[in-house]
């Protein structure tokens, strides 16, 4: 059952590649941003998985508990989540502006209109 220890990573890889595929293949800009979020969340899960220790609890020091999970990935990911939302907000603002300027948020239609002008 040696492969079971890697199962979590494989889930992460699947989610990550699904996010990557959405970002590359889909023309809709909002869909691309959702794909970016999916990708991001999968990276978060990867980090938190690395921090998990067997039999450990949440890293809040209390009496009678000896094993804690690694707090450092948690700190990194807390920061990353907040920064991720900031980038999402900025991206959505750009999408709204693009929609106003061109009247579409599909990537290929954008290119066509760009060529026309």
């Amino acid at each position, binding site marked *: 059952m040696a492969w079971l220890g890697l199962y979590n990573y494989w889930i992460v890889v699947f989610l990550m*590649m699904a996010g990557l*595929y959405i970002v590359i293949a889909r023309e809709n800009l909002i869909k691309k941003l959702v794909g970016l979020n999916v990708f991001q969340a999968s990276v978060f899960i990867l980090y938190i998985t690395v921090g998990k220790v067997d039999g450990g609890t949440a890293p809040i020091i209390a009496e009678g508990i000896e094993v804690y999970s690694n707090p450092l990935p948690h700190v990194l*990911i807390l920061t990353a989540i907040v920064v991720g939302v900031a*980038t999402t907000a900025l991206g959505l*603002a750009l999408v709204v502006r693009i929609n106003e300027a061109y009247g579409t948020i599909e990537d290929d239609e954008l290119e066509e209109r760009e060529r026309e002008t």
Partner: protein
Amino acid sequence: MAATVFMIVRLRSLFAVVMLSGIYSLLAAVMFVVLDAVDVAFTEAAVGAGISTVLMLGALALVKSEEKTPERTAILPLLAALVAGAALVYGTLDMPHYGDPNAPAQKHVAPTYLMESVPKTTVPNVVTSVLASYRGYDTLGETVVILTAGVGVLLLLGGRRRRRKPGKEGE
């Protein structure tokens, strides 16, 4: 979670996609609780599932909410994703197993923080003490990033109203 992501890839209605991405975030938060990261879990539930979804819905109210169907299915991106995925799976074969207490990540500075957090900062929650005390400057940098993003959004969307008004007067 995998099913949710699959539906996100397939669905064309952007409202459904945005709601599914909220569900995806919430599932990720549940996973974080299982993996002992309670702080991360409630941040993800509040910020990832809450604020992100609200922002997306706000943007959807301003743009078309239906994605058009592509003329052909994209083979090249699928291929790229599969190749990258295979490479990553090959990479995981060398990773330490799930929950391994002897993994390099558990041996480096983490024990120091766990041992010294209470004597040095008197904060029992190690995540808080590292975030606000040991790495306080990084958190300051994080807030600067949020400020920059906020300013950027305001510039992008705030300038719009002013620019549109003179345009209307010109017409």
